[in-house]
């Protein structure tokens, strides 16, 4: 019970740091955090589905998206990072690779570095949340492995992201 309260407090603290659209995120985050916390508190996986791939579980959300040339994690994506951080804390044997990506604009070398900063930013937040650094690897693909290849804003925004990939996946 204490753990549930603590995670709710942590989540609401983090949500309070954000400036816009906080209320809905907060509620959803609390609900999601609660369901995750309950799972790990009971010690048995929730019925049938792996939480990492259960579409009803925030852990199935694996991507953080960014504004152009930015690597700061927007408030709406923080609950995803928090959820995965909790999972990693609860599962010492789980390892993730954070893959940083950018859209195609600008230079490839600068984008390689920007993708690295995006991945490193997510790692930093996870470490602050208690995840041992050795469970997290960060790499950058820069603009080299875009998810979508059209040359306009609708594709570009999909490519500006960090993906959370668990060892053994993909």
């Amino acid at each position, binding site marked *: 019970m204490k753990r549930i309260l603590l995670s709710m407090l942590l989540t609401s603290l983090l949500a309070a740091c954000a400036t816009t659209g906080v209320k809905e995120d907060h509620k959803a985050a609390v609900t999601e955090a609660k369901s995750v916390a309950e799972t790990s508190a009971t010690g048995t996986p929730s019925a049938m589905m792996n939480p990492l791939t259960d579409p009803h579980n925030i852990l199935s959300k694996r991507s953080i998206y960014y504004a152009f*040339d930015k690597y700061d994690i927007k408030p709406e994506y923080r609950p995803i990072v928090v959820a995965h951080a909790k999972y990693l804390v609860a599962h010492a044997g789980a390892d993730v690779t954070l893959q940083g990506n950018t859209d*195609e*604009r*600008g*230079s*490839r*070398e*600068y984008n*390689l*570095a*920007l993708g*690295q*900063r995006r991945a*490193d930013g997510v790692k930093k937040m996870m470490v602050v949340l208690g995840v041992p650094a050795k469970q997290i690897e960060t*790499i*950058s693909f*820069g603009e*080299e*492995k875009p998810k979508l290849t*059209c*040359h306009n804003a609708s594709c570009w925004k999909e490519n500006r992201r960090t993906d959370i990939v668990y060892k053994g996946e993909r």
Partner: protein
Amino acid sequence: MGHFNSWRRRAGLLAAGCWLLTAVFLLARPVPAKAALNIEIIGSGETQTPIAVVPFAGESALPQQVGRIVAADLQRSGLFKLVRTDGVSPLPHQLDEVKFPDWVARGAEALVIGTISPQADGRLNIQFRLLDPVRQTQLAGFSYTAAPAQLRYVAHRIADVIYQKLTGAPGVFSTRIAYVLKVGRRYALQVADADGYNARTVLASREPIISPAWSPDGARLAYVSFEHDRPVVYVQTLATGQRRALAAFKGNNSAPAWSPDGKQLAVVLTLSGHSQIYILNADGSGLRRLTHSQSIDTEPDWSPDGQTILFTSDRGGSPQIYRIPVAGGEAARLTFDGHYNVTPRYSPDGKSFTFIHRMDGQFHTAIQEIASGQLQILTQTPLDESPSFAPNGKMVLYATDVNGRGVLAAVSSDGRVNYRLTVQHGDVREPAWGPYLNNQ
């Protein structure tokens, strides 16, 4: 008349090098003998010298038409307008066959004639003269001996001589370019002649290749390969195909840049936890850190005098171009226009640099003069990348996007001359203009 003894040795070395390269890369995808990159001329210079290039005697029987290659080179430079030679009969090939008034009447201010004759040993003797039909004088004349396989190279050397005599600047027609070709999921680092012919694959890979960088003597290429789990900098000797991992440190290794004496390189490593610039010897020894920020510092480029390095940094909150002494110390910011200036490359005289400048959401190739800070935007295409100067400083080669396809393009330093190099299949990117082959 001609420096063809040293030229012959160079031709022999080139032929041997080409043979070796072919032998080593038999397994690589074969590249067709015709142009790998097709040229499309978009714009020409403000003033163009009218020049007539008469087909060389004996060339029609040969696989390469020297006169046509010379004419195409001169036209592509944007500084020459070709005067038609048909209708003059008989076409002159020797000096005493030339009727100068015929050519003045056609508006020609320069005339090129030549001959190609086979020798007993199977090689060819190529001679040309550059004439001034108005003053009725000869401006240049050279003789070359070459194997048939070297005909294109000889034609480019002839075009270089003509260009230098008539414009004062050295020609770059006999130089080479490197670039990366992506077809489907395959990447190929290629080297081709400056006119897009004779492409050879230097590295074929299923993973990305970026940032090719020519050694100052043109013998080696440094590049970044993603073939392992993280980007690694390799240095490869072109004549033999042998390569060594120059920088394979933990984290990312990228953005290689050669010192002008070819003995050192700058690279970008993430050893410190941030992308930072380091310098090391070409043999991999002597690593030292150059930049000390907690930001992104990348894309180093050495000045021609070896004293300073330009680089891209977001230490001020947005990517801008800075300059730092090679010995280390304070970095000075050079770009103040707009919020995104990246990929600086010094001009050969060290007085300006080309770079990518974002304006109104579009990424254009630009040049900035260092002393005055004056900026000139050279292109109107919105997705430019990877600019580099030709070794004579007259043109900038860059990558851009046309109708959704990756192409290369070259633009003159005043923005007027412009041509594109396109491929039939796939996308081409990451161009780098190579040095003079004989260190003019």
